[in-house]
């Protein structure tokens, strides 16, 4: 039994399953506490928020897998949301595709700047992206001239993305935006599982020195991760615009904290090398469910939100340090190390059994 678990579940997957379990427990708990909790409204509020965070978290995961960080995502989301917002407000005729590409392209350029500095400039990523966090935000403040994009100036199709119903599951409506976010998560999960690029992201974060010696282009891969993270943040900026309509210069300020919290709570190792997109999505879901529910339940102020996020990050990292490392050791020790053939017929049999499966 234990062997079967060890064979088919990695510690990381156990972690994700327990996160699903925790989310369910949270939902049940608040269901008993808040009247009318299981309503379409709660569902929509949570899913549309998660959709935006999840897209950013996917990008952040790509970067964190390589043992780097991107702190500038909040500023990129804010900047693209505002920039695309003003363009659409000035000209309602811009096609949806053009608007999306504009957001992604803008994010990609910002990500490229981060990526070049980190990968080729060899500046620590924390410093680079802390700098661009401030610079991108400052650009936005300058560009906007402290004006606000308002909902009524935006084209209807954009606002519908967060409001109309794509399809329904029972009483719960799925918004186009939420479907898009899920699609992104699935696509990038496949990318990191099945493309050589993904394998190498893990490899770089797992052992940067060995990655260099293994002879693949680590710099280009790290830069690509940043470009993708920027692009996804750009896309999230577009979604942010669609969801809120009113965009000020402080739009998405602090979103880097939510994104990193989602990634970390979702089990992506802050030292790179392990984690999944599914985990990051679950992390985003966990955090937002808790956040939204607590706000409704205790009517706590939004000011406590950041404290909550910070606490969750610390709890996640602490449990990882204690539990996941133990699990890993347990897995590593489970008799799967190299031994001469004569000593371990059991391992051999086990291996053959594995091939049949």
């Amino acid at each position, binding site marked *: 039994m234990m062997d079967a678990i060890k064979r088919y579940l990695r510690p990381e997957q156990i972690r994700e399953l327990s996160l699903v379990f925790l989310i369910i427990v949270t939902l049940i708990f608040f269901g008993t506490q808040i009247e009318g909790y299981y309503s379409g409204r709660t569902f929509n509020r949570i899913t549309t928020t998660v959709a935006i965070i999840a897209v950013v978290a996917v990008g952040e995961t790509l970067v964190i897998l390589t043992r780097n960080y991107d702190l500038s995502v909040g500023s990129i989301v804010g900047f693209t949301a505002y920039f695309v917002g003003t363009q659409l407000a000035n000209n309602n005729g811009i096609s949806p595709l053009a608007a999306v590409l504009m957001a992604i392209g803008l994010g990609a350029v910002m990500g490229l700047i981060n990526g070049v500095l980190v990968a080729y400039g060899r500046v620590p990523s924390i410093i680079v992206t802390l700098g661009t966090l401030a610079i991108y935000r400052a650009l936005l403040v300058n560009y906007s001239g402290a004006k606000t994009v308002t909902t009524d100036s935006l084209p209807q199709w954009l606002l519908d993305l967060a409001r109309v119903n794509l399809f329904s599951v029972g009483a719960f409506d799925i918004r186009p935006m939420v479907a898009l976010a899920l699609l992104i998560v699935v696509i990038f999960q496949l990318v990191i599982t099945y*493309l050589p690029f993904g394998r190498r992201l893990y490899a770089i974060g797992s052992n940067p020195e*060995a*990655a260099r010696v*293994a002879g693949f282009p680590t710099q280009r891969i790290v830069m690509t991760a940043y470009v993708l993270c920027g692009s996804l943040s750009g896309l999230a900026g577009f979604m942010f615009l669609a969801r809120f309509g009113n965009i000020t210069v402080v739009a998405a300020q602090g979103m880097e904290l939510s994104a990193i919290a989602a990634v970390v709570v979702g089990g992506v190792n802050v030292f790179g090398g392990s984690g999944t997109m599914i985990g990051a999505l679950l992390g985003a879901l966990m955090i937002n469910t808790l956040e939204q529910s607590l706000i409704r339940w205790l009517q706590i102020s939004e000011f406590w939100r950041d404290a909550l996020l910070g606490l969750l990050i610390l709890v996640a990292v602490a449990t990882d340090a204690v539990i996941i490392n133990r699990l890993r*050791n347990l897995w590593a020790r489970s008799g799967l*190390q*190299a031994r001469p053939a004569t000593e371990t017929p059991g391992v051999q049999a086990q*291996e053959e059994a594995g091939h049949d499966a």
Partner: protein
Amino acid sequence: MTTNSNKPVLEIRGIAKRFDTTQALDDVSLDIFSGEIHALLGENGAGKSTLIKIMTGVHQPDRGEIVLDGRPIRIGNAVEAQAHGIAAIYQEPMIFPDLTVAENIFISHRDQGAILGWSKMYHDAAAILSKLDVHLDVRQPARGLTLAAQQAVEIAKAISLKVRVLIMDEPTASLSAHEVTQLFKLAATLREQGVAILFISHRMEEVFEIADRVTVLRDGKKISSAPRAEVTPESAIRDMVGRKVEEFFAKSQAQRGDRLLSTRGLGKAGVFSDISFDVYRGEVLGFAGLVGSRRTDVGLALFGVEPADAGEITFDGKPVKLHSADRALQIGIAYATEDRRALGLAMPMSIAANISLPMLREYLSRLGLIKRAAEESAAERFRERLAIRAPSVRVEVARLSGGNQQKVMLSKWLNARPQLLVLDEPTRGIDVSAKAEVHHMINDLAAQGLGIILISSDLPELLAMSDRILVMREGRQMGIFTREEATQEKVLTAAMGQNRGTGEMQ
């Protein structure tokens, strides 16, 4: 033993490489045949690593060429080396701990297609490992694999890349005796499959166990290259050192004083047991043993870092408990570690700051501030006394050569004014002349009445420096030999126990 003596698979012709002022390689030529294990010997700084780096594309030679199958090739980087079938494994395997064994094996493959096939990869990886007779679960993350298993994975990776020339750079340095045997079995399998192996090791007995041909480098030049049968350990050492070995180890007899430290039945569960010995003032007690003999663990126990859990320790006639390094320093025991980089020195800090670190308390002013002048003058004294070659004691330790770093580390512990000094591999990784200086210093310290425990894997060094030699094997004390009794033969026999057959000197 040479199975294919007609044409070498790889020829190195007249390679020269210069770094700044040092001629790292000077007109070195080497023929490597398939199905042959070719040992490369040389002191540190002899040019072995430079040669490997040229073969794997890290450095470009200034002159000379590398010829593969009769055609000159250019090796611009690691990828090109791989493409030519040249791969290297190192003492510390370059493994990705979060990836599975199979992923590690195939990580460098370029032709894996646009989409990775997991089941095919697992299958192929298992096939390669079984061909090597290695039993590993390919789905297991590499995290937690033993060093030997990690090396097996690296070898499998090389094979998956159709390796023709495999460079093994001190692969056994961190392995236990049992793992070395496994590795040698692997190497023999590869040899049968026609792979050419360039094997680098500092352990003579290994070279003579496994190699078909022995080449010696010294000061960037090839000194000799001959089939193993024509080489003896003595002749190889002579070629490596260039002078008679004895010249390096001049032992001055110090007056043996009172008993300084004695242990009775010292043990630590699962690590070592029943270690009983005495060290006298003015005496050098050598600790001999192969890797895995747990000599270092005894040293760490005496320094209180990894305290023993059984037995008694008496220091200067009084029973003592050693539970922390702080306590050990207080009563006068210091331990200079073999791993300068990881445990010994704070590389980005200055010489002075490193030397004062364990005794920082003594360099504080009344306000609790560090007295830099006092610190630097103390460091300055050591710089003169040990001839540390550095422009100033404010220089960062990272910028010093290995030998000078070693001296800084010794200064650091001498500054604590110990009565007993445990030196763990004090001459590993430093060049010949620095070695001589360290030996000289050990003599001096003993003459001043310090007790010294010298842990060293360099047997000639131990024999020359020690008054008595304690031999350990797998956590057990095999015996103590006096200077008169001790011979290379006797000490090695004890160190290898009944395994003697596998690792004997020729």
